[in-house]
């Protein structure tokens, strides 16, 4: 029995050692992605992950010379799972915000696009405090859009919060919500330009205030992994410089999503 315990203990120490050494050199990186946020990430019918975020993730890994595994994770649990070490980085169009920075470290931005409202064509809703009064707005829960609408219009509107952006689109089609608030690019490609969203249109100005939306979307990592943050920053700069970013950008968008 004692020998058995010793073997188990030795195995545990070995495994722990392997875990630590793996964490040190970042030759293998596990990346958390969402998979329900077209055109940035979605799941194909055969189960493969596709989209801008996915292509960027693969390009960055190639640049860093790391072997990457993509892990699909629901938005609600995407930060807790990072902290629980289920993966080492999040590439899921996550806006860099002060409140998230309290829990995770961010790379520099890898794109920045404004938020916008959408309404049903012919509804005539205007984006003012009076125009929004009593209306129902759909957002994805715990996004910058959720924080923005809660803080700025929380008293005037009813907010419906969804686990994924796709669910919000579904309820927009069936007429359960009067307005959508989301990233303009995601909504344009993921909804308005699809058959489902043909009766909907953008309304109101671009929202890009840094207070709510931050400097753009970045890669989130655990705060102690400062070396990984540096590696990702270097890789972002490299793919921006060598044309890889531009090639991926062109595949999905007609304009530069990196912003100024």
């Amino acid at each position: 029995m004692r020998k058995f315990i010793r073997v188990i203990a030795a195995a545990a120490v070995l495994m722990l050692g392997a875990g630590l050494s793996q964490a040190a050199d970042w030759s293998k990186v596990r990346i958390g992605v969402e998979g329900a946020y077209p055109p940035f990430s979605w799941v194909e019918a055969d189960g493969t992950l596709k989209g801008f975020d996915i292509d960027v993730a693969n390009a960055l890994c190639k640049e860093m010379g790391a072997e990457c595994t993509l892990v699909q994770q629901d938005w609600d649990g995407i930060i807790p799972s990072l902290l629980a070490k289920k993966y080492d980085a999040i590439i899921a169009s996550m806006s860099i915000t002060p409140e998230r920075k309290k829990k995770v470290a961010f790379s520099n931005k890898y794109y920045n696009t404004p938020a916008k409202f959408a309404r049903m064509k012919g509804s005539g809703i205007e984006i003012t405090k009076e125009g929004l009064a009593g209306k129902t707005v759909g957002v994805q829960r715990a996004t910058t859009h959720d924080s923005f609408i809660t803080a700025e219009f929380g008293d005037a509107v009813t907010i419906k919060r969804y686990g994924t952006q796709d669910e919000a689109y579904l309820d927009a089609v069936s007429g359960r919500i009067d307005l959508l608030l989301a990233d303009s690019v995601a909504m344009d490609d993921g909804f308005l330009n699809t058959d489902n969203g043909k009766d909907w249109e953008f309304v109101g100005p671009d929202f890009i205030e840094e207070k709510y939306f931050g400097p753009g979307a970045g890669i989130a990592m655990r705060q102690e992994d400062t070396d990984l943050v540096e590696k990702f920053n270097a890789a972002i700069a490299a793919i921006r410089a060598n044309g890889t970013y531009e090639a991926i950008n062109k595949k999905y968008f007609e304009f530069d999503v990196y912003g100024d």
Partner: protein
Amino acid sequence: MRFKDKCDAWGLPNDPIDFSAIVCNLPLYLEGLWVTVQLVVMALAIGLILAVPVALLASSRSIWIKALPKAFIYFFRGTPLLVQMFLIYYGFGQFEAIRESFLWPIFREAYWCALIAFTLNTAGYTAEMLRGAIEQTPFGEIEAAKACGMSGALIYRQIILPSAFRRALPAYGNEVIFMLHGSAVAGVITIIDLFGAARIVNSRYFVPFESYITAGLFYLIMTFALIWLFKRLEHRWHAYLRPRET
């Protein structure tokens, strides 16, 4: 029912366990608790009323009479509550005919969709329990009632149903608790019930342990209250089964 950010400062410390986000959002939990109580109480009440005729029809000897209620019971016991709720909430919303109809104001609201799903689900389970209890009625009781000259309706009202309710009571107590726990699925379709509140707090402050354990405690307290209530009811309704006190 609106979420207001009661914690003005997002500056929550990075302690391993930190309940400050829960404390600031306690009103949100209480609002959620109230929604859960409403949904469960209404679903159980309407479900029980629906279950009685369904159980009576299902315990009929004629295949024609019992076919439909049996199918109802099989469907709602045979599929997960989450599937039933998605079918009503997302599924019905797909059809133009329903969206154009007078029913849409009801199906438009997540709250009513959840209530309908919960009601039909608990009606299915309760009907099956009652059907079993009705079929277990001792022949002697019915023969005695007939010998006393009671009519069919009177036998049902005075003999079969009261004793069936008594026999079904312990199983029904479990069903009530299952319904309470099952009601957490309402949080998935934008309703801010107890679980929905926990999800909002978790996703804002990234405190999954604290937010879900708090919801769990509320469910636990309600469950204990229900267990106590059904113990009292059984004490009263099953008084004839207790050893006689001298």
